[in-house]
């Protein structure tokens, strides 16, 4: 093994790794990020080809077990009710993401105090607010300030994206029902913004890579600036262990390079940004005399409290084309009318309804928002009545933390270098099922109000494990949490975790703005405390 020493080594170059690298490098720290994936090339994205939809089912499928690209690691999901969605590359899962960019609400950080469930975060919305603003500026947000559904914020960098005909119809329906809605905050340029990034041309499949850079991803937003500030990024590097000294302080990481050669990278501080799934896996892999159950896992909480956003999906079919294949697939308008707890509904906490557009011909036929178009004599008739005529509302619920929903190490699966795969064990509780059921009722009503001729619901979208949260949770009590409010591991002062693993609770909103704001804040807290941080001798 060869050795180098840095101030900070970061594992993972996705949404959070990029943000923390930029912030630390800009403050003059010597930073290296190790990423198992590669840079994405935007001159050859599949959406330039007429067979672009094949890529969605193969090389760009969000489930690594289906995709099976050489840089991926497999996930044992044999006991998981929701399947994992993520990507391994510089940019991480933001390479595939829909770029819906909502902030959590103040109440999301206080669910124990307000509703007696889950736990309060040790920090508040107000602690994060300046970092949300900073992150918005770095990623570039199209939207409209002034939403009465959320605390005030600065003017968005760009005006909202077009709502599309589906969005306009549903906005009218929400208005008639008296339900609050607002155009989504979206990390997609509605006009040119950022370094060499153009405006969106509504092509649709953001997940296949955006050749103009209009759809943000951390490889085109944070990374160029981080590298200019001095951060080093090593690709093809799979970290398999966080190493520690006798006192249990982190000394660096061990990884396989792209040729499978084991190497060591020493640093005063180790920062994990490997996604809520990858981070728990790596912590559990990092066993030593001092940490027989994995690093910072004396409480047996690492990997536990896995949260998703269990999602129901309601699709309305209209009697005319609304051209939902045009425009960014995941974003249009957001309804948070049922977001906060209302005891009369029979469940605690709430859900968002996010209007998503629709699919191309293959996506329509194979199903997703709607069931697969049936084969046989009526195949084309069904296809004609469906394609370009649908819009869907997600019912995205808040998942409350439970100890038995967890990530462990798989006994049966490993990646190409033999590193054990993570295993997800996950089921839904009754509160979540009740919430989804209520949401399906609400979304159905909205589509009926909008004039849909058919409305169909999927009670649980199995392929919706986009948000992997809570597996190294944040709290002020070292006996009941893994990291403190500054994202530093209770038992290992020079181990910092900055991805969605640290979420105390999940809220019912897409998590990435909160993940990145937390990462920026953690970096600032580390910079401020730098001389006081206990590092290995």
């Amino acid at each position, binding site marked *: 093994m060869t050795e180098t020493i840095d101030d900070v080594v970061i594992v993972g170059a996705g949404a959070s790794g990029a943000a923390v690298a930029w912030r630390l490098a800009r403050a003059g720290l010597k930073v290296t990020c190790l990423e198992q994936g590669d840079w994405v090339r935007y001159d050859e994205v599949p959406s330039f080809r007429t067979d672009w939809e094949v890529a969605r089912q193969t090389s760009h499928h969000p489930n690594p077990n289906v995709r099976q690209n050489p840089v991926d690691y497999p996930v044992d999901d044999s006991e998981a009710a929701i399947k994992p969605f993520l990507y391994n590359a510089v940019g991480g899962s933001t390479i595939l993401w829909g770029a819906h960019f909502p902030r959590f609400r103040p109440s999301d950080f206080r669910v124990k105090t307000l509703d007696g469930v889950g736990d309060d975060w040790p920090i508040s919305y107000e602690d994060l607010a300046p970092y949300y603003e900073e992150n918005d500026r770095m990623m570039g947000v199209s939207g409209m300030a002034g*939403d009465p559904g959320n605390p005030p914020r600065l003017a968005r960098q760009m005006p909202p994206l077009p709502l599309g005909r589906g969005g306009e119809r549903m906005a009218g329906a929400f208005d008639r029902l008296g339900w609050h809605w607002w155009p989504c905050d979206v990390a997609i340029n509605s006009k040119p913004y950022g370094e060499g990034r153009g405006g969106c041309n509504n092509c649709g499949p953001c997940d296949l890579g955006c*050749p103009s850079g209009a759809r943000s991803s951390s490889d085109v937003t944070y990374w160029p600036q981080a590298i200019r500030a001095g951060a080093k990024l090593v690709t093809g590097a799979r970290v398999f262990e966080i190493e520690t000294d006798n006192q249990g302080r982190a000394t660096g990481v061990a990884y396989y390079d792209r040729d499978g050669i084991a190497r060591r990278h020493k640093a005063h501080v180790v920062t994990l940004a490997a996604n809520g799934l990858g981070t728990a896996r790596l912590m559990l892999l990092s066993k030593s005399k001092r940490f027989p159950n994995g690093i910072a896992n004396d409480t047996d909480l690492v990997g536990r409290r896995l949260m998703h956003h269990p999602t129901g999906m309601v699709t309305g079919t209209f009697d005319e084309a609304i051209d939902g294949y045009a425009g960014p697939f995941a974003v249009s308008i957001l309804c948070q009318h049922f977001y*906060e707890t209302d005891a009369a509904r029979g469940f605690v906490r709430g859900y968002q309804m996010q209007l998503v557009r629709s699919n191309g*011909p293959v996506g329509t036929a194979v199903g997703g928002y709607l069931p697969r178009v049936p084969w046989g004599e009526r195949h084309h008739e069904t296809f004609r009545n469906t394609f370009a005529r649908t819009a869907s509302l997600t019912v995205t619920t808040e998942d409350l933390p439970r100890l038995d929903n967890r990530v462990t190490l798989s006994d049966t699966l490993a990646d190409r270098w033999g590193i054990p795969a993570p295993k997800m064990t996950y089921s839904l509780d009754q509160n979540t099922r009740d919430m989804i059921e209520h949401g399906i009722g609400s979304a159905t009503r909205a589509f009926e109000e909008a004039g849909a001729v058919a409305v169909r619901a999927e009670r649980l979208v199995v392929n919706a494990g986009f948000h992997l949260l809570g597996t190294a949770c944040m709290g002020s009590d070292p006996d009941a949490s893994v990291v403190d409010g500054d994202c530093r591991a209770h038992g290992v002062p020079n181990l910092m975790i900055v991805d969605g693993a640290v979420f105390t609770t999940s809220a019912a909103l897409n998590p990435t703005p909160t993940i990145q704001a937390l990462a920026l804040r953690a970096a600032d807290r580390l910079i401020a405390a730098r001389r006081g941080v206990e590092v290995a001798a």
Partner: protein
Amino acid sequence: MSAPLTHLLDILIPGDGTFPRPSQLDLAEAMTIHERFGAMAARMVEALPATFDAMPKDEQVESIRHIEADAASTFDPFMVALYSLYYVHPQVLAAVEETSGYAARAPQPDGYSLKPFDPAILAIPAARGPQYRDAGTGSST
């Protein structure tokens, strides 16, 4: 290329007016040689009764329904493969264009034009007072 596969595909997607049958597109061949989908096609053909080709149409349909119900791990990926290859074929895309107005071209570089956002649509929601809950942490409503 196997005869049962050609036969099977035409039962699954019979084609009509503007939409061609898979056999008119040599789809069985394309599927068989496809890097990822070839294996799915092979598994599906293995799952068919040995006498599939010689069976009357209603028995063929029945045998496919059995596989769909009892061997989803074979059938579902196979259908993804079939629909994926069928609905990206230029002749099928031309039929989709004719039936829906969807342009039979790649999404890039031209994209689609959509009506820009008009803030007037926000008249009702913008007039509301605060809609979020006071958490007692400073962002009071």
